[in-house]
């Protein structure tokens, strides 16, 4: 089938157009006849000409070779270090294409054209020569080839990494290509709402503006969230609105409420790293039949004790919070109720009572939930627990917790109350069998033994336990013992080991 075209255009442009044709079509016999010798005397088979230009996407787009321009200092070759685009990506003028390196200088190469990347000429770590092609870009038909020298713009456009193909323009509200489009259509840039980054005006915004003026139907622009459609235009889903408007009485036109067109896209990413760890752990926890038990603890005496001891601990270089007391009380409770410090094997045939009380602390870090544990709490004093907690908190904040600190836990406490909350339903971390979550300490009115209303420091504890081996009564007794140590800290002294 003949694919000859009529063009009235500069010879160079024609040559590129023809070579693009040759590139795209496979009609071999016509190709040789088509090739450049009589530039202005081709004629199209009648009827095909107009269709060809308007509907044919493939043939009319020229492919421009983008050559590596002079970098300065007499450098003739560079190493391609990183590509920001791949074949098939859409680029705008001034988007970053790749990063090259030469002699301790890192250079960002930006695109001179709008278009689609069709070919990358170099792999990463290969040498590219100045003046030789870097990429092929398929551009819009009729796009003028950009200047050979980089255009001097004030203020400078960004040279930052373009990981998402967006430019941070600031004082420049639009790229030169967009400005040209606006100028050609007699549009004032100040009248156009920019939807690009930092209110930058994109080509789509100019097209929308034009469409608004002419009332044409538009496709929603990409990369936008919610965009109310132009008042005079209609959304693609309701083409019938326009004729309706004409039919209604001219005196009081019924208001057409524009439906916001949502063009946001779902974003899927694989689960890996810290998230994967949590997914794995919690999925395994599902196998444990949990039951919950919640209670209230009056910490008034503990608050007094801590405020007395805080100064002393600080003089020894340690920050003393309530957690060391909660942890030590739990360990004392575990001595009387060792079943809470046990582990059930996979077939639920054996219980292993762990000798060491390695009490885990749920920690909220920038990477998510981490649970380091304090080893052998049964041998540590409250102060030593505080020291160990400080160490773990510092490591956690620095992102340096190691496997030794993160494994081997036998019982866990979560101080979610430090962020907020009262009651919780914590999930047991296998292979443990119990966990406690502490809400925030609130000052609430309570009755004392004389029937008077007094101020009390109340914290709520929420326990979860493995109902295969722990029953409600045992949980209640353990919780009561733990609670009694905290409500009357002097009793801890009697049982301290």
């Amino acid at each position, binding site marked *: 089938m003949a694919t000859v075209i009529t063009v009235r255009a500069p010879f160079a442009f024609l040559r590129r157009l023809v070579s693009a044709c040759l590139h795209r079509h496979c009609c071999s016999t016509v190709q040789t006849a088509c090739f450049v010798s009589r530039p202005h005397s081709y004629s199209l088979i009648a009827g095909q000409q107009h269709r060809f230009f308007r509907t044919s996407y493939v043939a009319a787009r020229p492919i421009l070779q983008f050559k590596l321009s002079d970098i*300065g200092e007499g450098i003739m070759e560079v190493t391609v270090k990183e590509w920001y685009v791949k074949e098939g990506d859409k680029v705008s003028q001034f988007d970053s294409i790749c990063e090259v390196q030469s002699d301790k*200088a*890192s250079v960002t190469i930006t695109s001179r054209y709008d278009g689609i990347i069709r070919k990358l000429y170099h792999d990463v770590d290969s040498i590219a020569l100045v003046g030789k092609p870097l990429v092929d870009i398929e551009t819009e038909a009729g796009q003028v080839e950009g200047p050979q020298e980089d255009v001097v713009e004030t203020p400078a456009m960004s040279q930052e990494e373009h990981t998402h193909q967006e430019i941070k323009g600031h004082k420049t509200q639009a790229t030169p290509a967009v400005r040209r489009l606006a100028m050609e259509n007699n549009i004032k840039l100040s009248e156009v709402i920019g939807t690009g980054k930092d209110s930058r005006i994109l080509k789509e915004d100019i097209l929308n503006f034009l469409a608004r003026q002419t009332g044409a139907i538009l496709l929603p622009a990409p990369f936008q969230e919610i965009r109310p459609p132009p008042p005079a235009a209609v959304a693609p889903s309701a083409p019938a609105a326009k004729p309706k408007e004409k039919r209604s009485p001219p005196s009081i036109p019924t208001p057409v409420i524009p439906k916001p067109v949502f063009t946001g896209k779902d974003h899927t990413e694989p689960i890996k*790293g810290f998230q994967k*760890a949590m997914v794995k752990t919690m999925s395994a926890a599902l196998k444990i039949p949990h039951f919950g038990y919640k209670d209230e603890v009056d910490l008034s005496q503990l608050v007094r004790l801590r405020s007395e001891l805080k100064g002393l601990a600080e003089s020894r270089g340690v920050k003393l919070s309530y957690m060391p007391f909660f942890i030590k009380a739990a360990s004392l409770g575990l001595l009387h109720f060792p079943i809470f410090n046990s582990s059930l094997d996979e077939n639920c045939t054996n219980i292993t009572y762990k000798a060491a009380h390695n009490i885990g602390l749920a920690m909220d870090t920038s990477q998510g939930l981490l649970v380091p544990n304090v080893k052998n709490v049964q041998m540590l004093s409250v102060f030593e627990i505080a020291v160990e907690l400080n160490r773990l908190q510092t490591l956690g904040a620095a992102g*340096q917790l190691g496997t030794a600190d993160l494994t081997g836990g036998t019982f866990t406490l979560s101080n979610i109350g430090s962020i907020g909350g009262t009651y919780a339903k914590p999930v047991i971390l296998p292979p443990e069998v119990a966990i406690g979550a502490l809400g925030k300490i609130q000052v609430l009115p309570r009755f004392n033994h004389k029937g008077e209303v007094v101020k009390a420091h109340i914290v709520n504890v929420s326990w979860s336990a493995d109902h295969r081996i722990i029953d409600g009564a045992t949980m209640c007794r353990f919780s009561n013992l733990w609670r009694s140590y905290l409500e009357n800290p002097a009793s801890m002294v009697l049982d301290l080991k």
Partner: protein
Amino acid sequence: MVLRLSNRACVLSGSARLKSTLSTYFDEMGKAGIILKSASTGIFENLALEDWIPDRVDLQNRSMLLLWRNSPVVVIGRHQNPWQECNLPLMRRLGIPLARRRSGGGTVFHDFGNINMTFFTSKKKYDRHRNLKVVTSALKALRPDLDVAATDRFDILLNGHYKISGTAAKLGRTSAYHHCTLLCSVDRSILSSVLKSNTSEVIKSNATPSVPSPVKNLLDVDPTLDSNTIMDAIASQYSNEFGFDSPVITVDPTHEGLMPGIHKMAQDLQTWEWIYGRTPKFSVCSSIVVDDVTIKLDMDIKNGAVGQCAMEIPENWLPSEMVNEFTSTLNGSNYCPNETAVLMAAFMRTVSMTADVAEKIHRLCAGVVSVM
């Protein structure tokens, strides 16, 4: 003339000129050359300042010099491999952070005894030799007997032998910057220990390698040369060399109002994905010895994440299904000791194993983490 910009900033906001930024301030000054001093010693804020200036300031008709110093940090070049260039476990122990800059070149150690100088120009006026001449002339003006000279590799050598300055550059579409270090009174023992990798033998990569050189401090040859004296000399020599009448302005790179967008630039420079994830792909091939058993470990790392992990472990030491589960846990995770530790903890919680197997996995994990 030294102007404290923060005072000026108060004046700017007082007169309710809401859109005033550092950029408009420079435009109003109308000077062809400006010298800036950073008020911050934070590496990420200062690197963000280096990003902000070419992005938002008109450099076509104006050049700038930025003088800055940082608290101890190791800075690697854009395309380098940190595991190859420095001793990461030692840095973690000492609390010395790692940063990746946007320019090319090799790895350096900064502390308060090191002066950084960044020369901002348009791309046409980019001339590294001329910039280095400013530095060497300034030093010679201070101490005429000083033997300092720039090489054609853009280093500055003291007494023809010791490197006291290294260079790197970044070129964009219309502007460029050239920055270099200057060793005045850096802690050389820390410098040499952190810049020596503990894992370079096990890494195979195409990343830009650093060229190690013997170094010396200017203070070693002349105890009266301190950083402030040197910075002042460089500032005045800059004005002389380029014929500018440059004021010296102190800038606070954390001032988001004056430099809109700079906070995000600093944040971007601190992400794991930028600092570690930007490493060109490499492979790790190591032998770990655990309990007299030698284990061969092979990992391919792309974008800082473990792509393929293979381990050769004798079957009688650990069952192969356990080993396969272990390696599949690592696949896709970041090449980071913290993340590996967390994944291993989850692995040990969810896969049932006897106590001695747990011990072995523990030690195996410690061995794997030691190369990270």
